[in-house]
């Protein structure tokens, strides 16, 4: 590299000679390969190739037990029945299914969505629902209509990587609020709001994943839900409740949604990615009228309208297929996988490791022994044929290196057990290296959300 102090590397250690003879170097007019450098927006500066993405590319190979991705096990769907349903839909309603539709979404689907939300105590009118391209788009639209560059968003610590990427793209300032095994800590939330108020900063909204949190796996307890609502109501802070896993609890009935107890102060984001199929890309936002109107305008500007075919498929599925029973099938499947992961963690992990015990959803959040760094450990893990997501991707402030996320949704139980065994060996090897050299600091900085956003996040 052409940087640093002058050192001559020749074996005989001769001092550096005079500068090379010849004409002076021409002004720099080389090729940057990309002809559009200098035109990109400032927010595009983090869109770059990264080591972390390179390692995840390897994780896609079947030789690797990937405990990284959050891909639902869609093959558990009755694919023949769904295929027949889709075929009939096109044959009988093709003129509608293959045509532009209303920006707010199909009216019959919006009614079906209200039925689904009723399982979590939510009473809503279809007019309050805006169908979106996955709940990821709903989050993007919400951020677009509320956030100016520099605005403050409160988010849990850790938080969903897709949300952090969205907030970063709109140049929000994210402030993390601690969680524990019962979810967001209300006292810490109150303190964060008070600090911002004292500094003259206005918090635009609190972003929370209250049920079976991605990545932490924890769930906001019922008493804390009431406290969080109360704190935000007093502070005049909007809550964005992102709830893709709410119906995927293994051990209890669905938790009552925050939105069920506050129709004006909570925007609820829902998704069919985990309860039906991620590839359909159908989610929604449930919002009071003023916000809803702006969401519809923003959605129109973004996509004109959602896929009519996908919406009608979901609507037809809700109307004609045993979707509640199918969710139970998914829950049993994911429960078996969760149990395989937790049992093996308990059997093989070093004593200094700690992890969450999710009651549903897809993820376990593991804390490494002191001094270990999940980002710098990842190449060793890939070499040992196991993949996870470093914790640094779930923090906007560079934190999280002592954590990693494990997902159990996709691999079969035997593969999960094998993957955890491999991971335990990786942690042992990393512990030995750390003992040799001292506590690990990730050379070159931690992986950030920009390194990790992708379809199966």
């Amino acid at each position: 590299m052409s940087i640093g102090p002058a050192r001559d590397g020749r074996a005989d250690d001769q001092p550096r000679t005079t500068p090379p003879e010849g004409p002076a170097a021409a002004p720099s007019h080389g090729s940057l390969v990309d002809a559009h450098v200098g035109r990109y927006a400032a927010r595009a500066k983090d869109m770059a190739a990264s080591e972390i993405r390179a390692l995840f590319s390897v994780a896609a190979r079947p030789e690797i037990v990937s405990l990284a991705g959050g891909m639902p096990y869609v093959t558990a769907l009755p694919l023949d029945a769904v295929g027949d349903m889709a075929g009939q839909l096109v044959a009988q309603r093709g003129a509608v299914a293959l045509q532009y539709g209303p920006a707010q979404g199909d009216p019959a689907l919006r009614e079906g969505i209200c039925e689904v939300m009723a399982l979590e105590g939510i009473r809503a009118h279809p007019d309050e629902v805006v169908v979106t391209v996955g709940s990821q788009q709903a989050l993007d639209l919400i951020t677009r209509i509320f956030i100016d560059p520099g605005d403050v968003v409160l988010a849990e610590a850790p938080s969903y990587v897709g949300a952090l990427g969205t907030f970063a793209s709109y140049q929000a300032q994210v402030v993390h609020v601690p969680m524990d095994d019962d979810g967001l800590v209300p006292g810490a939330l109150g303190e964060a709001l008070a600090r911002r108020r004292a500094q003259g900063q206005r918090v635009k909204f609190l972003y929370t994943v209250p049920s079976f949190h991605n990545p932490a796996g924890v769930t906001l307890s019922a008493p804390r839900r009431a406290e969080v609502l109360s704190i935000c109501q007093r502070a005049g802070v909007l809550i964005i409740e992102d709830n893709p896993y709410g119906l995927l609890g293994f051990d209890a009935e669905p938790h009552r949604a925050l939105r069920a107890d506050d129709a004006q102060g909570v925007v609820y984001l829902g998704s069919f990615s985990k309860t039906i199929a991620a590839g359909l890309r159908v989610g929604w936002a449930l919002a009071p009228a003023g916000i809803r109107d702006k969401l519809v305008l923003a959605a129109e500007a973004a996509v004109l309208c959602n896929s009519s075919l996908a919406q009608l498929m979901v609507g037809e599925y809700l109307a004609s297929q045993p979707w509640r029973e199918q969710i139970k099938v998914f829950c049993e499947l994911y429960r078996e996988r969760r149990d395989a992961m937790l049992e093996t963690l308990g059997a093989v992990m070093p004593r200094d490791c700690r992890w969450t015990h999710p009651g549903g959803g897809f993820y376990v959040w593991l804390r490494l022994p002191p001094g270990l760094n999940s980002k710098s450990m990842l190449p060793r893990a890939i070499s040992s044929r196991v993949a996870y997501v470093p914790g640094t991707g779930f923090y906007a402030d560079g934190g999280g290196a002592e954590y990693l996320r494990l997902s159990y949704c996709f691999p079969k139980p035997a593969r999960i057990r094998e993957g955890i065994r491999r991971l335990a060996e990786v942690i042992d090897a990393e512990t030995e290296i750390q003992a040799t050299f001292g506590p690990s600091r990730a050379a070159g900085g931690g992986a950030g959300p920009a390194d990790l956003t992708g379809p199966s996040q």
Partner: protein
Amino acid sequence: MSRERGNELSDLGHVLILAGGLSPEREVSLHSGARLRDALREAGVDADIADADAGLIPAVITDRPSAVFPAIHGASGEDGSIQEVLTLLGVPYVGASPDACRFAFDKPVAKAIARAAGLATPRSVTLPKETFHDLGAGAVLDRIVATLGLPLFVKPARGGSALGTTLVRAAEDLPGAMISCYAYGDIALIENCIVGTEVAVGVIDLGGGPEPLPAVEIRPLSGSYDYAARYTPGQTEFHVPARLTPAESKAAAEAAITAHQALGLRDVSRTDLIVSAGEAFFLEVNVAPGMTETSTLPMALEAAGRGLGTVCRDLLSQAAARGT
């Protein structure tokens, strides 16, 4: 067997590009393979991509290619493994033999051979992690800094794309750099940092002996030619030909040829050098050079007025004629 594409004909028959693999450079390899496939097809060659996985051997046995172009970066693609497999299958391939790959892929071994052939190379130390464990990391690192000075490059002895590589300016950062390095392999190369012009010199041999391509000068805008700088368009400035004096250009070209020959390489290679004070310092050589949009070998071919597809087609033809 001929294949007609527009007005172009290729007698080469069906060829395979191996791309992907299981190293951390998999993504780069997939991009290289895709670009190479497109270039070969444009040149009238019936080319497809295959990964080095459980499907490779059955596929080769079922539909035997006339030749293979290995484009897998990192271990298994560059350490001789895939070349051994292709030899076992009796399939001709482009590039170095398994033995030559083994010498070239191991940076300390390649440096030693280059030095023995008369090339300058930065002073360095090569150590497995066990040495630090057994002798005490602090004491060993102190001696390294005292002997080689700062700044230093810490890099895996076997690897590429700057993965696991750290430029260390302060001694207290050395332990962290060693940890990052050993995450990619068990042996580390710790090398003195030379100030100069970083250049890459491609070499191709189409039967008339190795010929150097124009040197490509590499200037990462951040100052660090790390993974992001290598594979994100817009983060590195390339000058082809490199802005060297005639004497420096000659030294760089000769160094690349010397490295190619001393290591017993074949068909194509890329040597990475630092040119400083009129001298070309050997860093490493690559037997499966990258072919992405930001890779230097295709840039050098273009500067030499040669097409990536036609050159690689000719290399494949040469390999096919050579047999195994």
